[in-house]
C-alpha cells in the first residue's frame, strides 16, 4: 500500500489524481483466523491495527455487519479529552489522548486531530471548588488542566449569555487545552488502512449470528457469510454487546440506551473550542464544514432503535439557547441517535470474559470515541497476552462482583444516570 506523503500528493496532482488506489482491501472471509474481532468500528479496527503492529499477530479478521465505521464511530460528536478523576480512568484516558496526538503520523492518514481546547463552564462557587479538586487530581497525574474566571471565559467565549438576566450566570470554567475534536470517519479509515496493510482482513456485510464452541471454549463464529474458526474472538460492538453476549449465555452489567446528537446548518466560525454547559447536559463544537455539532442527555430508557424521542430534542435545544442565546434561530440539519452500552458504573470493560476464548471490549457508555486508540491498544494487549495491561487493569469484567466499581459520577448502579 502506497505511503501518503507530500511527494505522493504532488505526483498524483500532476497525473490528474488518477493514480490513487483503495486505502484498504475489502476482503473475503477465510475459513480460519488466529483472532476474529467482531465489530468494524473504531475500537475493533484499532484493536486489529495494534494486534498487528504491536504484537505481530496479523492472521486477524475484523467482521462488520454493515459498512466500516457505520455504527457509533459515525454517530458521535467527535470530542477527545482526558479530564477524568477516578483511578482506573485517569491514566487510561490520558494514554488515549497521547495516542491521538501522534495518531496521524502513526498510521499515515490525516485524522484531522484538532486540539482546540475544551472549556467546561462552572456556574457557582461550589462547582468551582469541585472543579479545582478535579484539576488538581488531573495535574498530579501529569494532565493539563486550568481554572479560568468569568472574565477570562468572556474573553474566550464572548457569545455566551453574560447579561444581568442570565438564568445560570457563568462563574468560571475548567479547561483542558489539549482536548479537542477529531474527524471520526478518518479514524476508522486510518486504522482500517493500517491494519489492512499489515495483512488483517476487513470483512464487511458479515453479521455474527452465533458462536461455535468446543466444550466451554469458543472456537469460532457463525456469520451471515459462513462459519469462521478462530482461536480467540474479541467483541467490540458498542451498544450491541448485550445481544452478542446473550448468544453465549453471558449476562452483562449493562443496559443499551440512546444518545442523540445534532448538527446545525453550516455557519461562519463561531465556536472555536469544545464548550460544555455546567447546569445541564449540553456540549457543543463546530465542525470544519461550519455545522454546530452538539448533544445532551440520554433518552433514558432501554432501546436499540438508533433514533430518539422529542423530549430530549427540546431539552437539548433549551440548554443550548440558555447558554448561547444567539442559537435561537439556527436550524437543525441532521439529528440521529446511537445505541450506547451503559454500564452499572459508567466505566468500560476491557477484559477476558468467563467464557474461554472470548474477550470483551464494551460498556463504553457515551464516552467511547475519545477512548478509541487506548481501547484498541489495551484490547490488543489483553487478547495477545491473555492478561490486561496495567492501563486496563481496573477496567475488569468482574469488578461489579468484587465491589470495585469505577463510578466517576457517583450515580450508583442505574445505567441511565451515568
Amino acid at each position, binding site marked *: 500500500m502506497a505511503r501518503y506523503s507530500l511527494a505522493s500528493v504532488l505526483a498524483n496532482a500532476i497525473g490528474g489524481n488518477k493514480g490513487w488506489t483503495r486505502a484498504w482491501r475489502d476482503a473475503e472471509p477465510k475459513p480460519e483466523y488466529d483472532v476474529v474481532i467482531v465489530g468494524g468500528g473504531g475500537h475493533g479496527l484499532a484493536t486489529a491495527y495494534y494486534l498487528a503492529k504491536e504484537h505481530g499477530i496479523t492472521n486477524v479478521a475484523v467482521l462488520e455487519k454493515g459498512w466500516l465505521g457505520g455504527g457509533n464511530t459515525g454517530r458521535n460528536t467527535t470530542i477527545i479529552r482526558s479530564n477524568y478523576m477516578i483511578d482506573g480512568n485517569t491514566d487510561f484516558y490520558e494514554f488515549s489522548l497521547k495516542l491521538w496526538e501522534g495518531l496521524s503520523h502513526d498510521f499515515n492518514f490525516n485524522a484531522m486531530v484538532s486540539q482546540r481546547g475544551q472549556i467546561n463552564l462552572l456556574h457557582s462557587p461550589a462547582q468551582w471548588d469541585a472543579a479545582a479538586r478535579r484539576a488538581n487530581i488531573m495535574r498530579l497525574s501529569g494532565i493539563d488542566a486550568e481554572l479560568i474566571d468569568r472574565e477570562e471565559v468572556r474573553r474566550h467565549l464572548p457569545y455566551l449569555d453574560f447579561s444581568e438576566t442570565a438564568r445560570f450566570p457563568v462563574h468560571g470554567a475548567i479547561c483542558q487545552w489539549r482536548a479537542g475534536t477529531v474527524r471520526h470517519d478518518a479514524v476508522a479509515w486510518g486504522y482500517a488502512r493500517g491494519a489492512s496493510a499489515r495483512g488483517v482482513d476487513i470483512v464487511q456485510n458479515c453479521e455474527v449470528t452465533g458462536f461455535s464452541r468446543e466444550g466451554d471454549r469458543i472456537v469460532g463464529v457463525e456469520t451471515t457469510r459462513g462459519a469462521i474458526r478462530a482461536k480467540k474472538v474479541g467483541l467490540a460492538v458498542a451498544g450491541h454487546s448485550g*445481544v452478542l453476549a446473550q448468544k453465549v449465555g453471558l449476562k452483562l452489567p449493562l*443496559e443499551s440506551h440512546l444518545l442523540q446528537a445534532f448538527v446545525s446548518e453550516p455557519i461562519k466560525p463561531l465556536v472555536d473550542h469544545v464548550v460544555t454547559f455546567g447546569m445541564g447536559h449540553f456540549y457543543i463544537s463546530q465542525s470544519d464544514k461550519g455545522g454546530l455539532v452538539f448533544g445532551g442527555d440520554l433518552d433514558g430508557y432501554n*432501546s436499540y432503535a438508533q433514533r430518539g424521542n422529542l423530549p430530549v430534542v427540546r431539552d437539548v435545544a433549551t440548554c443550548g439557547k440558555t447558554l448561547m442565546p444567539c442559537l435561537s434561530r439556527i436550524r437543525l440539519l441532521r439529528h440521529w441517535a446511537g445505541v450506547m452500552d451503559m454500564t452499572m458504573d459508567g466505566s468500560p470493560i476491557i477484559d477476558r470474559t468467563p467464557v474461554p476464548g472470548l474477550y470483551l471490549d464494551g460498556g463504553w457508555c457515551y464516552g467511547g470515541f475519545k477512548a478509541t486508540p487506548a481501547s484498541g491498544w489495551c484490547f490488543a494487549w489483553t487478547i495477545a497476552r491473555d492478561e490486561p495491561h496495567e492501563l486496563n487493569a481496573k477496567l475488569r469484567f468482574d469488578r461489579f462482583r468484587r465491589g470495585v466499581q469505577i463510578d466517576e459520577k457517583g450515580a450508583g448502579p442505574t*445505567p441511565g444516570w451515568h
Partner: protein
Amino acid sequence: MRIDCPCCGPRDHDEFAYGGDASRTMPDIADTGMERWFDHVFLRDNPRGPHKEFWHHAHGCRQWLVVERDTVTHEIARVALARGEVSR
C-alpha cells in the same frame, strides 16, 4: 412515545420516569447470598425486542406502571398498574 396510563389515558412519555427492567425479582431482604444480590443489582438481560419495564407517572397520577415495550420499535404492547399488575 406515548404511554397509555390506566388512570390518566395516553400521555407523553416525558411525564413518566423510567424505572428499568421489571422482570427481575428482588431477593428476600434477609437473603445473604452474594450471587443472588449481585445478579439482582448489576446484571440485566437487556433484550433487543420485547422488554418488561417500570415507569412512574411522576407528572400525573404518580402510580408505578409495568409497561411491555419493544426496544427496537418502541411499540408498547401492554400497560398495567405495577401494584397487583392489573391489566387495562
